[in-house]
């Protein structure tokens, strides 16, 4: 099930997925639901948020799986020996460690989430790239509009990278791989 979920979301372009959520889903649902979806205010925003969220969740799932797999087997065995249930083992032992290990790839997933929001321009959401495009169309100032968008993206990137690095250092456990 998890495998199918990940494969489903990873093997389709994000753009196609957004189209399906935005154009196809309301038609396939029962009539009244479809109508409600279409008439919802800010529909492109919610569609993009949920669509991109699902798309990225599949990729984060892969990273987390890699993180959990990279933990020594003894941790899980020790947790079981202490009498923790499976849920407790994951919540208190495996996941806290796995998340610390996958912090660097998680940072880049976070960055690509920000970049992927620009795909939402195709379903009519005016985000940063869309705003730059609109500016350029009104004023014919191609370079100014796109330079502004580029600089803003770079700034957001720098902020995220710095914040994640601070977070990484703050939650690092001394003496462990991640806590150099």
């Amino acid at each position: 099930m998890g495998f199918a979920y990940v494969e489903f979301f990873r093997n389709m372009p994000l753009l196609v997925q957004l189209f399906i959520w935005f154009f196809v889903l309301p038609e396939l649902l029962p009539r009244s639901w479809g109508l409600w979806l279409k008439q919802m205010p800010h529909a492109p925003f919610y569609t993009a948020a949920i669509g991109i969220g699902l798309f990225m969740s599949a990729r984060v799932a892969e990273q987390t799986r890699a993180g959990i797999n990279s933990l020594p087997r003894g941790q899980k065995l020790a947790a079981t020996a202490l009498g923790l249930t499976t849920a407790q083992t994951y919540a208190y032992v495996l996941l806290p460690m796995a998340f610390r290990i996958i912090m660097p790839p998680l940072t880049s997933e976070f960055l690509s989430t920000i970049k992927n929001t620009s795909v939402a321009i195709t379903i009519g959401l005016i985000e940063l790239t869309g705003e730059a495009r609109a500016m350029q169309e009104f004023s014919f100032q191609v370079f100014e509009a796109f330079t502004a968008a580029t600089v803003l993206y770079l700034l957001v990137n720098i902020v995220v990278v710095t914040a994640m690095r601070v977070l990484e250092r703050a939650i690092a456990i001394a003496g462990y791989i991640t806590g150099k």
Partner: protein
Amino acid sequence: MFESFDFDVIRRSLAYLFFDGMTFTLTLTGLAALGGLIFGTLIALMRLSGLPLLGRIAGLYVDLMRSLPLVLVIFWFYFLVPYIGQWLTGSSRPVRVGAFASSLVTFVLFEAAYFAEIMRAGIQSISKGQPAAAQALGLTYSQTMRYIVLPQAFRNMVPVLLTQTIVLFQDTSLVYVLSIPDFLGAASKVAQRDGRLVEMYLFAAAVYFIISCVASFGVRQLQSRIAVMR
């Protein structure tokens, strides 16, 4: 829910979808992957050259490209390429560039940044002894790279390069923002002309899904075969 489905619209547009759309998508993917690999390898070599200025430039280029969304880069180059052409040919007006050429330049330059990082990892995975031995044999730097380091780096990275190419294949759908008829663009054109959004988008999704699935399965097979060989 599916009772009003019109499969005929898909059948009628199959020829257009595959001969025009898919051909565009696949040609763009293939050429962009090839160009990206060549430029990417050059950038990786610049980064590892040990010359501070070259390394700095290559690093900046990779960081810049990797922190911008592809859609924005597509728009950038769509407006920039005519001016670059004007500058290169020295003509008095911006050069007229077709949709294909413009998107090809975009994808080559954009993917070069990603391929550069892969090739850098590949080159760094070669043990230090190899270039040292090549130097001891009296090979020049370019000979060392051409005959010793790059072939091995390339072979080690083939699965990763192919995976990146699959990602590239999916990303080419973004040329939709320039209304270029790639596979998705063609599907969406038919969809809007005939008012058959549901059928066409589901069909396009299924085609992308099947191709990517088969390709990544092939890469996985290749990976296990290479792993056994080593």
